[in-house]
């Protein structure tokens, strides 16, 4: 069981804002005390640069920094030399578009992505395709908000073991992945629809068609909410952000298969990433260091370790199950109160969704809805959530988005419902 009242005590922001209803963890999560304290610990006890000093403070900082690398490796079942610290998910994906994409993509090759991507996993590939003359393929979604890649007309037998809807559907990538596809890049969880894509199955089917296809996963919304095992998923690269999983801002993680990382050229050049520099040439360090040029966000990386500990202490399976319950409750309550006047984006498989509900309320503009809710200290996102192609596809220019994490509870859902009632009154609906 998740004890929200107890959990809230670990997040100092609730002490300072007792009436806060925070429903925007998809944008960034709140931070628990151990993370904040770890930042202070670094700055007050051993705030030296890493790798550079032989004195003990620097050694302590280096040790702590590398401890996070090991921790993250275990967290996603990778190896520590496969963990690259970036600034955020966006930088990890851009690093790939430069260091991998610009090396392997040639004219008429195919790059495949989906319509539900965050701009950070869409634009870098679109630009790369334009530059190189490659084909940029975008997988659409169906009515229910799932990727449109399930076989139709296939009857699925109900098996005894519990399978999710998605696992029991057969995936068909025949018209999507070809021998010319070099990169398939997609999100694990949509930051608008909450759709959880069946990554493992997609990888299996894609690699059966073309064993050489490289699969990249944007795990920005998955890492905070779901146990990730990169080996089990069978992916080649995976990126996520610290700040969405209780950690500090300014740090991201890019994981990649070691062999592939070795083949890639560095993205940034400078300090820490070199082995030797001569007048006429430079040798680079091995991964991950050749991708970490310059002084990194040392304190933030170190404190990220505490975020992982906190998540593991509660348990990601528990977090996932709790959020699913909460988002279904929210869905039910909103539908009960407002019926057709609240339109949820991609509401087909609400039982399979991560804790995200994007919606439009009456014909009101999301800004106006969010503004009135903010007067009641309810934090809700409004806009296109960095997913304009998806909104265009759905025929709306923007939406409101409520997202739930394990520090949210039923009360927050009720406050959202009450807040929306107030919006109705204000606009005389």
């Amino acid at each position, binding site marked *: 069981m998740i004890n929200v009242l107890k959990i809230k005590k670990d997040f100092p922001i609730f002490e300072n804002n007792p009436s806060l209803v925070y429903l925007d963890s998809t944008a960034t999560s709140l931070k628990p005390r151990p993370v904040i304290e770890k930042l202070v610990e670094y700055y007050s006890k051993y705030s030296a640069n890493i790798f550079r000093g032989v004195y003990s403070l620097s050694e302590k900082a280096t040790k702590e920094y590398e401890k996070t690398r090991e921790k993250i490796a275990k967290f996603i079942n990778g190896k520590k030399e496969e963990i690259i610290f970036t600034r955020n998910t966006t930088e990890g994906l851009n690093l790939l578009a430069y260091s991998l994409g610009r090396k392997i993509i040639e004219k008429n090759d195919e790059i495949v992505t989906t319509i539900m991507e965050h701009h950070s996993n869409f634009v870098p590939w679109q630009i790369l395709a334009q530059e190189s003359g490659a084909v940029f393929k975008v997988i659409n979604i169906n009515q229910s908000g799932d990727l449109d890649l399930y076989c139709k007309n296939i009857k699925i037998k109900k098996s005894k073991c519990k399978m999710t809807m998605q696992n029991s559907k057969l995936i068909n990538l025949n018209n999507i992945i070809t021998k010319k596809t070099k990169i398939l890049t997609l999100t694990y969880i949509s930051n608008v629809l909450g759709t959880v894509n069946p990554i493992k199955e997609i990888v299996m089917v894609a690699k059966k068609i073309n064993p050489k296809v490289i699969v990249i996963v944007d795990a920005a919304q998955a890492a905070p909410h779901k146990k990730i095992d990169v080996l089990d998923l069978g992916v080649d690269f995976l990126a996520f952000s610290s700040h969405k999983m209780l950690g500090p801002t300014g740090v991201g993680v890019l994981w990649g298969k070691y062999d592939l990382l070795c083949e890639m050229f560095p993205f940034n050049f400078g300090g820490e990433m070199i082995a030797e520099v001569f007048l006429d040439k430079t040798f680079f360090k091995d991964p991950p260091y050749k991708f970490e040029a310059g002084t990194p966000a040392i304190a933030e990386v170190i404190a990220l370790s505490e975020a992982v500990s906190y998540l593991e202490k509660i348990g990601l399976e528990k977090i996932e199950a709790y959020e699913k319950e909460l988002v279904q409750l929210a869905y039910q309550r909103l539908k009960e109160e407002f019926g057709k006047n609240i339109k949820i984006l991609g509401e087909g498989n609400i039982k399979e969704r991560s804790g995200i509900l994007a919606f439009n309320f009456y014909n009101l503009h999301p800004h106006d809805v969010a503004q009135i809710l903010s007067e009641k200290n309810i934090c809700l996102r409004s*806009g*296109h959530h960095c997913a304009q192609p998806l909104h265009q596809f759905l025929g709306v*220019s923007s939406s409101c988005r409520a997202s739930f994490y394990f520090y949210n509870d039923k009360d927050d859902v009720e406050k959202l419902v009450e807040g929306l009632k107030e919006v109705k009154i204000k606009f005389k609906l």
Partner: protein
Amino acid sequence: MFNIYTEIILDHYQHPRNFGEIKNPTKKVEVANPLCGDKIKMMIVFDKEKVTEVKFTGVGCAISTASASMLTEYIKGKTKEQLKKIDKNFIIKMLGVSLGVNRIKCALLSLEALKKLL
């Protein structure tokens, strides 16, 4: 936070003035707010220096719609010289509410359109 949805703003939002298209405008522009993807199209007819007709269309929030509605009402009959003097402060005064850093962009979308029409 105090109320920015005053009667007058709600009235202009729910019944926007000068909403629609002009067949043969002297000039026509489209501006967008990248924060939310909102768009406003504004078209204008000048008789020499004077505005004889102005209209706008597009989707927007209450603030951007009310701002466009009130602004188009104001600028009819004014000269280009008079319109050049309109600035951010004018719009804020016109709306009569104080907006946060993010919402002020909504209010200023119609001003951006007007500047491009001059």
